[in-house]
């Protein structure tokens, strides 16, 4: 008998190993749609034959005095380069294809750059635990429903940088919590965002940001030593979705990773 839970994993593992075409040809570019193409074949070929015969007759009669122009059918969609070819690579793009990350259990998708990967926090770690008054949401494991950390670092480097609760600087930490009846604004309002100076923080900027029509509460917490934590909060039913990253001028980011990279991943979120 086929174990069906196992089958799904086998399907994922095996089919995910099938090769993809170059990203430059994912979108249709130089070809007409099938129906248009059939029309071109049905109408265009006889027409070309008629024109060719007419041309031959004109050539034969000496009427054709102008050189013929070659025309091409315009593209149905413009061809768009997806990366800038580096020099010395024979003009070939070498950037890796972005990966789609799907979380059907908590109904969101993200696109991470090809050089990024998902990593797993060490067992027993709890993200961003704060000893706050009881009015703040309880940030303890029973209320943490899901957590995924994405990084551009190699495994050994990543392990060396992991702290007890937080993913390393320049990683993205996506968490889903039981929101315990509190709104995104309430979740985002604690510690320095509630006017309380603590943990060496210098302040909190709290705003809202709309991503694909959905409004997130965004906080940016700055600290005396330079690290800055940015969090996006979204209420979804009984859950609180949090996307968080921190940048640290004292920690070298992985090659090519900037604040814009992290913001790009956050803004790729699709809610399903």
């Amino acid at each position, binding site marked *: 008998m*086929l174990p069906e839970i196992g089958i799904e994993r086998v399907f994922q593992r095996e089919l995910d190993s099938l090769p993809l075409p170059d990203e430059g040809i994912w979108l249709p570019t130089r070809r007409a749609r099938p129906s248009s193409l059939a029309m071109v074949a049905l109408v265009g070929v006889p027409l070309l034959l008629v024109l060719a015969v007419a041309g031959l007759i004109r050539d034969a009669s000496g009427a054709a005095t102008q050189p013929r122009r070659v025309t091409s059918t315009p593209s149905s969609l413009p061809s768009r380069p997806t990366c800038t070819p580096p020099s010395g690579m024979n003009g070939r793009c070498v950037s890796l294809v972005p990966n789609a990350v799907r979380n059907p259990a908590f109904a969101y998708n993200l696109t991470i750059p090809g050089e990024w990967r998902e990593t797993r926090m060490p067992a027993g770690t709890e993200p961003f635990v704060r000893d706050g008054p009881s009015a703040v949401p309880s940030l303890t494991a029973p209320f943490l429903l899901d957590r995924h950390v994405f990084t551009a670092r190699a495994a050994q480097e990543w392990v060396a940088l992991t702290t007890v609760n937080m993913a390393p600087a320049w990683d993205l930490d996506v968490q889903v919590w039981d929101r315990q009846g509190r709104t995104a604004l309430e979740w985002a309002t604690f510690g320095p965002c509630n006017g309380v100076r603590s943990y060496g923080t210098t302040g909190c900027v709290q705003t809202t940001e709309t991503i694909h029509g959905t409004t997130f509460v965004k906080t940016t917490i700055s600290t005396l030593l330079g690290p800055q934590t940015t969090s996006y909060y979204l209420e979804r039913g009984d859950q609180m979705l949090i996307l968080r990253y921190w940048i640290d001028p004292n920690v070298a980011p992985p090659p090519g990773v900037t604040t814009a990279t992290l913001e790009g991943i956050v803004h790729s979120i699709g809610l399903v």
Partner: protein
Amino acid sequence: MPTRISAERWEQLYRLEFARVYRALLAVLRDPDRALDAIQDAFVAGLRRPPAEDDDLAGWLFVVAVRSGRRGFGRSLLRLDHARSRVSKDEIAASLDRMEVGRLLAGLTERQRAMVVAQFYLGLDHREIARHFGVKTGTVSATLAQAKARMRAEVRNAS
């Protein structure tokens, strides 16, 4: 009234789902050029009439592409730029034959393969498969039951 998505958003979502849907199509059609043609046709169909934002877009793309792949069978000579994939049909077939999943799927009809891949790879349930394929849930259950029976027989024969 569900909101229709814009062309820009559609392109973004298409790129997001491309890898999964293309690989699902490879498993069903076993031909990289047919799979690419089919998914591109589905993209164009989505530009003409975008699905709703809350639709299961991978499922939508997959089924529209499977239908297009079926209609397009034997039409490939009309393509202006076929054979655009780096990997040949024979290489894909060989890859699938090396896989446990590929060997199990090889014994199924294309329709059975499509529903099995929709369930086990794309994660659609019977109701969603029925809705996307435009058939009754009972038809999906029966088709999947036949497919699973055939795959079980394949496993027994192989062991």
